[in-house]
């Protein structure tokens, strides 16, 4: 598959460049810490790491305002961090604490944050797309200028809900940015082993959804493409599908022995590590010094360490409250 490159770079200023780098590093270090906490059995259940895909979440999130809505997947740590959900509340969620962003009810796969219009991580592949369509419908009916963005992977394009959602969003001209993070594998099945047509943006076009594909390892290219997509949608032109071509460096989850791809393939992709790639770009452009790099690294490490302390200190929800959040009360 050929990977299109953006031809014209964003005129990126130093402050923004360092911000993007820092955001990607926050995710990388958070995920590394999560893996460590998993091996210490502080985190249990499924844990799907975002390492390798940092540029897609960070770049894409720059295109959305606090008024916009986000719908994510079970590999959503990067989306949540890039959306600004406090690191400690995310770590605490994975520790199962009441101070977690979902009060310990969701764990790694189900981060939610109402104040940031983060409508959750969904763990049934494709299940978030119809919800994004509905959120966009609600915004449109209430004449709010917001857009909804929905992250999903290449595996989701095999689900009926992908096709139904493309059709409905296009039919009703809804303000949705569909963000397909194509990491080439639906768990352990390569795209070409489960799709007759491997060009995802082509599928969208057949439903009348405007679309494009972009190198998902280049954070500036992702940001530019996401801004274009979001502007298109904000202009009342209906939905847009942006396919971001990326790769996860770790296994599907901590339970995955990763037997379905070669070490060589992984090593090839690691040469395009989005963080290393961006760092060397910035050094080339003289936007990043060794001092900057060391400072950012130290600040990020401190933030993640503090998140672990916050998680450790968090209380457990009392068992007496087990049934509290099943149903609400009718307002009088």
């Amino acid at each position, binding site marked *: 598959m050929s990977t299109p490159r953006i031809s014209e770079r964003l005129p990126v200023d130093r402050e923004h460049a360092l911000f993007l780098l820092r955001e990607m590093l926050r995710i990388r270090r958070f995920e590394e810490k999560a893996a460590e906490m998993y091996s210490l059995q502080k985190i249990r259940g499924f844990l799907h790491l975002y390492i390798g895909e940092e540029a897609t979440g960070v770049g894409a999130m720059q295109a959305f305002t606090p008024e916009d809505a986000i719908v994510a997947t079970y590999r959503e740590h990067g989306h949540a961090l890039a959306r600004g959900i406090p690191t400690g509340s995310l770590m605490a969620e994975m520790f199962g604490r009441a101070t977690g962003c979902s009060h310990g009810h969701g764990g790694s796969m189900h981060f939610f944050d109402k104040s940031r219009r983060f409508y959750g991580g969904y763990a049934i592949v494709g299940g978030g797309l119809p919800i994004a369509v509905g959120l966009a*419908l609600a915004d449109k009916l209430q004449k709010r200028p917001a857009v909804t963005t929905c992250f999903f992977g290449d595996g989701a394009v095999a689900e009926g809900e992908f096709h139904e959602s493309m059709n409905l969003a296009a039919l009703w001209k809804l303000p949705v940015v569909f963000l397909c993070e194509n990491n080439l594998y639906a768990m352990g099945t390569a795209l070409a082993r489960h799709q007759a047509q491997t060009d995802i943006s082509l599928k969208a076009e057949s439903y009348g959804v405007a679309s494009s594909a972009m190198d998902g390892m280049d954070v500036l290219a992702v940001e530019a493409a996401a801004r274009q997509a979001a502007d298109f949608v904000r202009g009342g032109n209906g939905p847009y599908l942006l396919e971001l071509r990326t790769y996860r460096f770790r296994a599907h989850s901590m339970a995955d022995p990763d037997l379905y791809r070669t070490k060589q393939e992984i090593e090839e992709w690691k040469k395009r590590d989005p963080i290393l790639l961006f760092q060397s770009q910035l050094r080339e452009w003289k936007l990043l010094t060794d001092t900057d790099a060391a400072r950012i690294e130290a600040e990020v490490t401190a933030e993640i360490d503090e998140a672990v302390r916050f998680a450790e200190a968090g209380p457990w929800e009392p068992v007496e409250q087990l049934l509290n959040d099943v149903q609400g009360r009718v307002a009088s």
Partner: protein
Amino acid sequence: MTYREAVRAALRKALQSDPRVFLMGEDVGRYGGAFAVSHGLLEEFGAERIRDTPLSESTFVGAGIGAALGGMRPIVEIMTVNFSLLALDQIVNNAATIRHMSGGQFNVPLVVRMATGGGRQLAAQHSHSLEGWYAHVPGIKVLTPATVPDAYGMLLAALREPDPVFIFEHATLYPLEGEMEEDTGLMDITQAAVRRPGRDVTLITYGGSLGKTMEAASLLAKDGIEAEVIDLRSLRPLDTPTILDSVARTHRAVVVDEAWRTGSFAAEISTQIMEKAFDELDAPVLRVCSEEVPMPYAKHLEEAALPQVNGIVGAAKRIVS
């Protein structure tokens, strides 16, 4: 007024009084509803609020969830309960879980209506009674209006709920004529109703089986057996106290449920009575359910598969004598 007109009147009232309410589903607009429930509403309220959808049950139910999260009060119509299985992922994995999974941050005020039940010779893909499956799931409410006032009032009450409510309208009820008071408005949806008082046996039913059960009670009365008929109205939450109160007086119970017997909601009711009123019982709780067969087309076979009045009478007599 018919049951169909009562549902339509409730839809109209909801659409008039709350700008957040809209209706979507297959053929609800231009066609007027597969059961003609929404006939005329497109002309009255326009295409923004009466939305025809593609045949995409999973996505239009999921879009209902999203719209509810986004501040609307969607009413989603699914043509029949058999079709709702295409949306089961959205209903069970999303609608029912989001409040809990989000630690109570989000709620999904979604109302989903659908037709259920057999008796119209529509064979094995349009005739089943699967509401008991839905009643298995915490996080949603399951209503089964059986009368004209309930068809109206329960829909309006459902729209005030902060969480997903599923309303099962038995398809044979749509032409049912009934009286409705002028001031029928909001009603309680958590309580069962005693539709006929009696002292000898409690007949517990809901939805499309209420009529047959009332007829059976009349026949039993001719033989000197006074049956009390309980219309559950809501399967989740279940009004267990009303059931137990009645059984404490009659000491006998028959559950009438159009769903299949195995793993049925009738089994749940029977178990609740056994667990909570064992000492009150003078006889085993009996169940009158559908036969264990996909619904046949031929009239005589369908009748044989569904609970019938004589079966209810027979079951009651077996434990009363």
